């Protein structure tokens, strides 16, 4: 059992100088050996597959302007499946999985009774928070890449692959479209970092991981509801979900980098504030389990 307290704690004291990297490696190993993580990644991978199969089996090609954006392009170019799936996943599925992972970070260890073993290293609490955040970020990247890669693979299998039409109407080669898809995956990963930081903070408040997960997911939904209300326009640029769908700016010719920068700045702000809040809460917390 990788989450066995003695195995995890046993890794720690032996290599003190590099203990951060050791801890990170062990965190990744625990995260990606979990059956739950794999189940979530599989569910995410199923979204593009569902879309592609549904479009392939339907008798009439999708009409432009109906259904999710880019859906009508799928039949012409399989590489669009990943992008369409991302649009579908961003509002709910991706925040859901990220909420589960980020909400579990501290509360999960506390719940299993492994937290105190992780804290045997002196000054370990800050490092543990950083490692937990890095682990959640790694999951964000893995989740986004899963959607994009599985979309590209199923699209290539079921539909023709060729030059890709951008939003501006210009076409780019297959090679460049792969590059753009990876850029989009990077953008979406960055977009989810603010939510991960919020999840990390909520996770330090409780020892019930399900509560932290649910609260994080609810917050992501609340942010999007607030973002849809025109009466709260002044608030919109401050919501962590504000730039989520603006990854499409990477699909213009030339690329509009402004939203990438704005998004990165916003997410960094959320990570700083909620990371610091998590620090304030976690270093003073009595660890009872």
């Amino acid at each position, binding site marked *: 059992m990788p989450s066995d307290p003695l195995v995890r704690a046993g890794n720690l004291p032996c290599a003190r100088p590099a203990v951060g990297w050791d801890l990170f490696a062990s965190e990744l190993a625990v995260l990606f050996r979990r059956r739950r993580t794999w189940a979530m990644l599989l569910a995410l991978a199923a979204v593009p597959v569902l879309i592609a199969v549904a479009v392939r089996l339907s008798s009439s090609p999708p009409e432009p302007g109906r259904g999710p*954006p880019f859906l009508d392009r799928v039949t012409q170019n399989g590489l669009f499946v990943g992008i369409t799936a991302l649009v579908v996943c961003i509002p709910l599925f991706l925040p859901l999985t990220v909420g589960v992972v980020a909400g579990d970070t501290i509360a999960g260890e506390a719940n299993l009774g492994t937290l105190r073993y992780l804290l045997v290293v002196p000054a370990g609490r800050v490092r543990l928070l950083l490692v937990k955040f890095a682990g959640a970020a790694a999951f964000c990247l893995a989740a986004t890449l899963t959607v994009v890669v599985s979309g590209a693979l199923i699209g290539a299998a079921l539909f023709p692959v060729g030059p890709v039409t951008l*939003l*501006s109407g210009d076409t780019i080669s297959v090679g460049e479209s792969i590059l753009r898809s990876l850029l989009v995956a990077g953008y979406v990963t960055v977009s989810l970092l603010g939510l991960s930081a919020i999840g990390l903070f909520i996770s330090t408040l409780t020892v019930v991981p399900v509560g932290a997960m649910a609260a994080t997911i609810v917050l992501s939904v609340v942010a999007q509801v607030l973002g849809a209300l025109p009466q709260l326009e002044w608030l919109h640029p401050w919501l962590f979900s504000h730039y989520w769908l603006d990854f*499409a700016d990477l699909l213009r010719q030339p690329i*509009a980098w*402004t939203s990438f920068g704005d998004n990165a700045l916003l997410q960094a702000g959320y990570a700083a504030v909620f990371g610091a809040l998590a620090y304030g809460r976690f270093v003073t917390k009595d660890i009872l389990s």
Partner: protein
Amino acid sequence: MTRVWLRWVPAAAASAVIAAGALAVPLEAGAAVNLPDKTPQEVLAMIGDSTVDTLSGTLEQTSRLGLPDLSMGGSAAGDDAASALELLTGTHTARVYLDGPGQARVQVMGRLAERDLIVNGTDVWLYDSKDNEATHLTLPADAGSRPAPAPGSPQTPAQLADKLLAELDPSTEVSVDADTEVAGRTAYDLVLTPRGNGTLVGAVSIAVDSETGLPLRVKVQARGETEPAFELAFTALSLAKPDAALFDFQPPAGADVREQALPEGTPQEGTPQKDTEHGDFPGTVSGTGWESVVGLPAGSVPAELTASPLYAQATEAVDGGRLLSTSLVNVLITDDGRVFAGSVPVSRLQAAAAGG
């Protein structure tokens, strides 16, 4: 006890830095700019003298006309009236590329969508990513050339500025406001203020680049409002020559391509341009300057428009008809189908309707 409080210092510091940053950025944008003083004539002449013909920039348009926001309950999909109204509400961003008189590209960026206009010599392309639809127009070969100025008309920008000012003077006060900064460039702010108070327009201000004379921002202020009712401004601007490949548009494979002929009656070489103000214009104009009211005869509004639920939603019932009210323009559609519009209070429109 103090140790406990110390733990929260990073969180407070992070929040404080962000709050300070959020406050400082608008302050920095409004920082005092000091340029050598110029008279309104000189600023107008600068606009006329402007030789900028290559640029790439980002334009942002904001309308606060008080129209209902239709982006939410936009049930009437594909409704032309709704899509025209959509441009009059909220904020829109567009990228503009210009290379000489013959090459231009405008990209109106929407969420997950884009509308493009590409002009390359005599080829004009319109592309809409939502419908994946491209429209092609061919302009007559000499469309780009400008007609020679008529003899007797002012020749230099300075003369033109003088003439314009003389014409504006009875109705409008023209002044130069405090220098400002738009898209990182210093600019003179030319302000046109209506002299009478019978109009809804409070002031129109045009920010003019201090180096090149290029207008960088237009703001229209409604009377009694604190924020501009309409604003069109560059948020980023570079005067470098844009990449030539941008203007070389090929419709993407799979797109709906429509060839559209130029509509009949488009001014061609030799045919004098119709004078829309006096020639074929069926309506009437009453009042002068800012307080003009334009009247259109019955039947000018298509029945399908007045029947649409959008119409009922956007207009309100007033004495004698229905009123479409914005902070800058009022439009009165009388019960017998006539239309009166002007940048004036509704009582003036009702008087015009009664008088006509």
